[in-house]
């Protein structure tokens, strides 16, 4: 018998294996860096129809714009032949599901409501870069181009560190402004003015100290019509951090040394934690005083609970997201007014809670293409106009062109209005000015930092902890989390 000879030597086999591994690694690198731009085969040349028959899932926080989109999907399905299933839930659950989806390497949810602080910053690797899809000739162009989006919103909701990449297109733009009952201020305003020595009706000149004084006055003099002057969203929840941030920034404090500059593109190096500064302590002290006169159930309310209380007539005024305007208009037609938030010693600040929609990086082929068509359609001017007038609430536009449409301009300030949220337009457009907007730091550890912030604040409000000790504990824990 002839001695057996191997077809390949061991060295050849090892070299071949190494080459194969390198090829696979290179392939993985190349697909990981650039989003593919698949071309569909359906539709006979119509770029909107090329992925006809594909089914995709859109996961979103239960917000008014998503309710409006879910209720008005028929035009998209007629336009593209794509079936979209919209899942809406609380933001915490969206974050949890996205984390599981991104980690599993699959795309159960193709279109993602990419909250810039809780999803985009910590999980940017799980989102596809939309730039290749935007630039590709395979798809319908973004109507009016990216320049039509409000620039600060495009940066804040769409980018993270690398400004060449776009992870999401601006989809909604909730921003905190002051909501107040015009009928109550009309009734009690003159008396309050005589007692307090200033006009109590919320306006662009109101300060936080005046806001506090008006709240106390209502508690003491208007119980027949309203239980409390003010309410707050002070549940141990993200809402508490949002509510407090308005005060913190207006008192000159911030979470990090680099301050508001971290809110647009974000950073992995935000500088030292500064929340325990003298301004931070002053803000916390004032916020504690504010909550002492607020509706006592405030510590159980998040933003929805606060909006429900306002609509139920429990409070005369409160800071809340402007997208609750539609519901308020239903409860008190023509009797709800909107104003900028009160001024602090340093500035006035309106926390921006806008979010973009992006695509799961695990989506491939037709599902990726279909998801991009949906993102493009859902953020288009016509869809935003439709959303504005939706019977189920609707959002507010992230496109400058929508605010300039004659039919939209005609509805500003009208009551009843077919676009109830646009009643807030004058105020929110001022709130979005660079000197008025409040941006949270976009860092990948934000969810943990957020938890530290609202937990310590909750201890201060409900256990009577000292504001200085609260801010010191917050600072120390945030520093530890950033290490």
């Amino acid at each position, binding site marked *: 018998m002839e001695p057996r000879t191997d077809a390949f030597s061991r060295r050849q086999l090892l070299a071949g294996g190494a080459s194969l591994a390198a090829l696979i690694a290179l392939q993985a690198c190349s697909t*990981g860096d650039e989003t593919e731009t698949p071309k569909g085969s359906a539709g006979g040349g119509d770029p909107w129809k090329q992925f006809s028959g594909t089914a995709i899932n859109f996961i979103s926080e239960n917000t008014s714009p998503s309710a409006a989109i879910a209720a008005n999907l028929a035009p998209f399905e007629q336009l593209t032949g794509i079936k979209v299933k919209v899942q809406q839930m609380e933001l*915490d659950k969206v*974050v*949890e599901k996205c*984390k*599981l989806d*991104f*980690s599993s*390497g699959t795309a159960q949810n193709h279109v993602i409501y990419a909250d810039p602080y809780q999803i985009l910053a*910590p*999980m940017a*690797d*799980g989102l596809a870069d939309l730039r290749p899809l935007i630039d590709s000739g395979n798809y319908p162009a973004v109507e009016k181009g990216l320049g039509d989006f409000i620039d600060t919103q495009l940066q804040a909701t769409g980018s993270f560190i690398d400004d060449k990449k776009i992870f999401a297109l601006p989809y909604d733009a909730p921003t905190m402004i002051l909501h107040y009952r015009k009928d109550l201020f009309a009734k009690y305003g003159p008396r309050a003015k005589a007692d307090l020595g200033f006009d109590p009706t919320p306006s662009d000149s109101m300060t936080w100290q005046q806001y506090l004084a008006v709240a106390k006055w209502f508690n003491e003099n208007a119980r027949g019509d309203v239980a409390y002057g003010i309410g707050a969203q002070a*549940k*141990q*929840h993200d809402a508490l951090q949002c509510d407090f941030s308005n005060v913190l920034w207006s008192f000159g404090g911030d979470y990090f040394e680099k301050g508001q500059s971290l809110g647009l593109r974000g950073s992995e190096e935000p500088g030292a934690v500064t929340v325990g500064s003298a301004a931070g302590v002053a803000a916390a002290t004032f916020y504690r005083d504010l909550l002492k006169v607020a*509706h*006592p*159930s*405030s*510590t*159980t309310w998040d933003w929805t*609970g606060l909006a*429900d*209380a306002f609509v*139920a007539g*429990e409070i005369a005024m409160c800071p809340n997201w402007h997208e609750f305007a539609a519901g308020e208009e239903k409860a008190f037609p023509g009797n709800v007014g909107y104003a900028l938030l009160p001024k602090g010693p340093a500035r006035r600040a309106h926390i921006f809670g806008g979010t973009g929609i992006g695509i799961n990086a695990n989506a491939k082929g037709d599902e990726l293409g279909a998801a991009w068509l949906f993102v493009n359609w859902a953020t288009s001017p016509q869809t935003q106009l439709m959303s504005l007038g939706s019977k189920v609430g609707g959002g507010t536009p992230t496109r400058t062109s929508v605010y300039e449409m004659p039919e939209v301009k005609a509805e500003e300030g009208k009551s009843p209005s077919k676009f109830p949220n646009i009643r807030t337009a004058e105020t929110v457009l001022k709130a979005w000015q660079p000197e008025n907007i409040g941006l949270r730091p976009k860092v*990948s*550890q934000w*969810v*943990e930092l957020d*938890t530290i912030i609202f*937990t310590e604040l*909750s*201890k201060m*409000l*409900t*256990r009577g902890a000292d504001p200085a000790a609260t801010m010191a504990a917050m600072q120390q824990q945030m520093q530890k989390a950033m290490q």
Partner: protein
Amino acid sequence: MSAGLDAAPRTALRARAVPPPRAGRVKRRVRPPRGLKTFEFAMMAPALTVLFVLSWVPFVVLVAMSFAKVRTLGGVSLTFTGADNWSAVLGDGSIWASWARSLVYFVAIVGLEMALGLAVALVLHQLVRARSVVLSVVLLPMFLAPVLVGLLGRFMLDSTIGLYAKILQAVGLGDDLLASPSTALPTIVSIDVWQWTPLVALILLAGLTAVPPSTLEAATVDGAGYFRTLVAIILPQMKPIILVALLVRSMDAIRYFDIVVATTNGGPADATKIIPIKLYEFAFRFNNQLGKAAVLGLTMLVFSIVMARIFLRFFGDRPSVPAGDGGDRG
């Protein structure tokens, strides 16, 4: 106490005192386990394999994760970090505080549900007419999903729209029960007790109906009153079923999650942040902290085992082994 009442416990004690013959145990150790080579075992093997994969593989992975930094985005990766996660978790004061709260929850929930469940079961057992109708009504809460019960509690206690809140306000108790750290925890305990007491009652009712009527009649003949009969006859005979109820509820109490999330989300001031909520934060909210979540999961497992052992020690009636039954089974 009459001799008749003492007879049964004494017999049981004697049976426990007699050690099983050791010869059989020695034989089982020496002989190869014949069961592993049987047709029956071959038939069970697929199910056992599935059970092994479903329980031991995750356990081993959990242990590995507890000693590693775990990244999930872009493919799961474990970087060995020694005992860092363990030292971080065991050195974190907020986690110990959370354990203390969990213990309070545990004792309150299990204690109240067992006491009230027994009371309800005894009442139901006395009912002759309409027992099934009353039982159906009593059992209703346990058919609801816990998250729904949490939401129901939240809405009923909401100061703006809640029925219970309005009733409390009407009697002068206007404070929001979920808004204060001192009342949030008892409120959530009450919600859980409302939902799960019926389950305990159902289990104990089954135990009550299993008590032999002849024993109860004998007790009556001997002049034992209701409470004497309950303490000396009924409860001792119900020990195995009480153990079942205890184990079921205590395992649930350790994993308690849904109602807290739906009502307070751990607040106010962390007053309701029990260990499962902490675990959830590490695993699903914070970035790259699955290692710490794994440590918490393992400590919860140890706690469960310890509690189960304690209950078994107090309520587990070891089966008496008749003389001569220690022979060759193997």
